[in-house]
């Protein structure tokens, strides 16, 4: 009954999304606030209906209703409740409902947004409704999550054991909040192309309307990707955290486009310039999101992450991608030349620096796109098969980013319109000196000595110190009295702190990535109980192996002791090999010992006999120095995004409410 109700709610959400589009367009054409208001109401109702459908799906998973095909093929009564619920978005069908729910939810928030002009809002709500309707139709007609099975099986086939992890509960929702959040920037861009004027007042206002959405989506996507990376790091047991896997790339492309969008939207907001380019990026970010959905769900890629491999669905998604992105970019090509914003600027200026940022970020996104799609295209065109993996990106993506990182700290120190490069350089002199010191220190601190690693550490330190130098400059530290500095610190807008944190967080990530990649150590050997193995700075002893029974698996659980080689506190880690009888699959549970910034990463492998011992287990140990920073850095970046989001200048609704009495009193 609840299942049928869910299916009905999903159909209702689709119908309401269509209504949302129709009413908004009609209202815009007739300049009728009643009709557009009804369209906004439909957006709210559509989100509600979609949430009910999603709730019904979760219910079906929670009670293990195997008469639902989706539940039967992705759940099992033995699974812990957390994974039963999370399995609701662990499959293609379920994750699509989540995708649609986020999309309609954002549509509802957009419909409630204050301060948008009548026409722009009607067009944006109509576009958002159209996007929702397309994806809901895709869910309903090709991937019905509520399809029944008759007869219902007694037991389900359970979820892929690799996915049975607490991260499944939060990683996909966060990722989708990011991916789908860009649908709103897409809608606002389409609306701006229809409603925009070629004058100098429209674009700064539009920049301000689009920026909170870009920021929020970017922050969600940052956390989502980082969490996914960390998940792969501790679940796959390979000691790596980024594999340039096509599906990772699919999530990285919207992130890069979104990052470029954030920066170019600042120029549009402050200066009215780059309006066409910002609109282009707003369209591009969501186009990349849709491309990612196509790549992951169509089966054109082989990847560890790919799911629901079905060419027909892939074709449908490709059609949605082609229609929406095609129409939007056609509109862009037609309207953008008519919509020139104002704001001229000298090459050396804040705007100029942000343009450079965009040049490099766009080239980086294009590199990832090329690396992901090139093997497909080449094979289709010439039937030659090639692989594009980490070495390619190390030779193309990384140098581009290094150049961008070297320029980055100068940007915030340049004035708008016309900057003083020499002045900016002088203000960065201290940071540059400290960077050199950091590079030299790292050269002596790390063994073996590697010039490239010292250079990479210098880049990371340069980003962090450059971000700090900008704050020092803004509060005039050491140049004015202490109380004045404190006053200036308090007066700094949250947006400024957000930028500082985001740039410093990037530096933290670079430090972690460079040190981990350059100085990680790895060792593996078969160990009998009581034997030891060393890797890097650590010695690991296998203490005990027991067979333990989990809720839906049987595991060989190894207890190991990690001791620093130069003496120090020993700590116990647990690594498991879990066997899931339902699917006949085995997974590894990595034992992680967090030591300061370093990770000691222990994987217990198969049991085997050695000449010395009847029973031994292959134990693989990775010493991953500074690996913590790899995940901490992006978290700091996302925090910066959230801080910026709470800047009063962007809090449209709140600022307006506070401001209202002022207007009346004036």
């Amino acid at each position, binding site marked *: 009954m609840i299942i049928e109700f869910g299916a009905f709610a999903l159909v209702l959400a689709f119908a309401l999304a269509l209504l949302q589009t129709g009413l908004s367009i009609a209202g815009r054409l007739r*300049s009728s*606030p009643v009709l557009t208001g009804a369209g906004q109401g439909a957006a709210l109702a559509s989100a509600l209906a979609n949430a009910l459908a999603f709730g019904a799906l979760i219910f079906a998973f929670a009670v293990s209703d195997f008469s639902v095909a989706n539940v039967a093929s992705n759940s099992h009564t033995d699974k812990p409740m957390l994974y039963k619920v999370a399995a609701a978005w662990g499959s293609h069908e379920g994750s699509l409902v989540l995708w649609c729910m986020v999309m309609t939810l954002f549509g509802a928030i957009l419909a409630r947004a*204050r301060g948008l*002009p*009548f*026409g*722009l809002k009607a067009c944006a709500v109509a576009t958002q409704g159209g996007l929702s309707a397309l994806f809901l139709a895709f869910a309903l007609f090709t991937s019905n999550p509520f399809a029944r099975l008759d007869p219902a099986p007694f037991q389900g086939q359970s979820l892929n054991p690799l996915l049975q992890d607490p991260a499944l509960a939060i990683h996909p929702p966060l990722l989708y909040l990011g991916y789908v959040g860009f649908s709103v920037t897409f809608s606002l861009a389409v609306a701006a192309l229809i409603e925009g004027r070629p*004058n100098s007042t*429209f674009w*700064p206002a539009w920049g301000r309307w689009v920026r909170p959405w870009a920021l929020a989506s970017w922050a969600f996507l940052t956390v989502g990707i980082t969490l996914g990376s960390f998940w792969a790091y501790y679940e*796959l047991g390979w000691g*790596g955290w980024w*594999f340039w896997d096509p599906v990772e790339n699919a999530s990285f492309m919207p992130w890069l486009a979104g990052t470029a969008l954030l920066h170019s939207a600042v120029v549009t*907001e*402050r*200066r009215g310039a780059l309006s066409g380019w910002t609109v282009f990026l707003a369209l591009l970010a969501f186009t990349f999101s849709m491309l990612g959905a196509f790549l992951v769900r169509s089966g054109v890629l082989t990847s*560890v992450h790919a799911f629901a491999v079905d060419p027909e669905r892939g074709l449908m998604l490709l059609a949605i991608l082609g229609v929406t992105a095609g129409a939007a970019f056609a509109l862009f090509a037609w309207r953008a030349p008519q919509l020139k914003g*104002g704001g001229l600027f*000298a*090459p050396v200026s804040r705007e*100029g620096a942000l*343009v450079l940022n965009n*040049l490099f970020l766009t*080239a*980086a996104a*294009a*590199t990832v796109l*090329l*690396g992901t799609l*090139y*093997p497909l295209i080449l094979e289709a065109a010439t039937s030659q*098969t*090639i*692989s*594009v993996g*980490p070495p*390619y990106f190390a030779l193309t993506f990384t140098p581009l980013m290094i150049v961008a990182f070297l320029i980055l700290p100068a940007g915030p120190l340049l004035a708008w*319109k*016309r900057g003083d490069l020499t002045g900016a350089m002088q203000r960065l002199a201290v940071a540059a000196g400290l960077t050199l010191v950091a590079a030299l220190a790292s050269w002596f601190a790390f063994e073996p000595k590697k010039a490239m690693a010292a250079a990479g550490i210098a880049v990371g330190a340069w980003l962090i110190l450059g971000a700090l130098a900008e704050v020092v400059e803004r509060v005039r530290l050491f140049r004015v009295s202490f109380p004045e500095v404190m006053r200036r610190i308090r007066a700094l807008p949250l947006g400024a702190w957000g930028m500082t944190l985001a740039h410093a967080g990037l530096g933290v990530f670079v430090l972690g990535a460079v040190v981990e990649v350059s100085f990680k150590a790895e060792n*593996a050997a*078969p160990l009998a109980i009581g034997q030891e193995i060393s890797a890097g700075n650590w010695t690991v002893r296998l203490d005990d192996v027991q*067979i333990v029974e989990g809720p839906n698996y049987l595991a060989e659980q190894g207890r190991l002791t990690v001791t620093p080689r130069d003496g120090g506190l020993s700590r116990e880690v647990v690594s498991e090999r879990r*066997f899931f*009888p339902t*699917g*006949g*699959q*085995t997974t590894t549970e990595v034992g992680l010992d967090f030591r300061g910034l370093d990770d000691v990463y222990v994987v217990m492998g*198969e049991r*085997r006999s050695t000449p010395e011992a*009847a*029973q031994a287990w*292959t134990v693989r140990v990775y010493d991953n120095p500074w690996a913590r920073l790899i995940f901490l850095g992006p978290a700091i970046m996302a925090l910066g995004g959230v801080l910026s989001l709470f800047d009063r*200048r962007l809090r*449209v609704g709140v*600022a*307006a409410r506070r*401001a*209202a009495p002022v*207007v009346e009193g004036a």
Partner: protein
Amino acid sequence: MGRYAGPIALLNRHDRSSKDPGPGFRRDERTWVGFFLTVLLSILILATPTFAQEPAALPDQPLADASQEARAQALFEVLRCVVCQHESIADSPAGIAGDMRRLVREEIANGSTDDQVKADMVRRYGDFVLFEPPVRFGTWLLWFGPFALVALGGLALLVVSRRKRVETRDLSPEEEAQLNEVLQSDRFGPNPVASSPHAGRSLGSTDDTVPVGVTPQPPISKP
């Protein structure tokens, strides 16, 4: 993903296939044959589901020479397991990845250079095996596209900035007033709602909501 696929027997395979025949076993020739057959059969029975899906890789024997082993490890990272989904042979637990690792080690031990090893792997498995695609006519776009894009973009920016050597100017007072109005009162394009009670309760009216770069104007008030 069933790389480690195996039955529950996997967990205690060793105990069952132990070569210790137990006490009181008479070691004559016939018993040996019987013993071996039993062991063989039990291994087959117990391990068949495992072997059917995934031939168990022989344990990796690192090369004795540390520098040679380091070269081998570096090569493992850039060679793709040919049956896996985007995994290097360093990461892949598949049987064939184990074979490929052994092959690489053998060739290095025999004195092949890194390039010779790669060339031999390409001869056996095709370009597909290299995570770093070869630079040739068909992959020029792949290799040089990113840099060409930056170069072209930079060139375009240079041209535009030279052409637009116009003095920048601030917004005129009228434009600033217009901008303030837009940010303040919803009034943009035909907006019937502007006269509703919600008018004015919208975007920015205080000084700090005006974009930096635009001189803050006092809120528009009645004269």
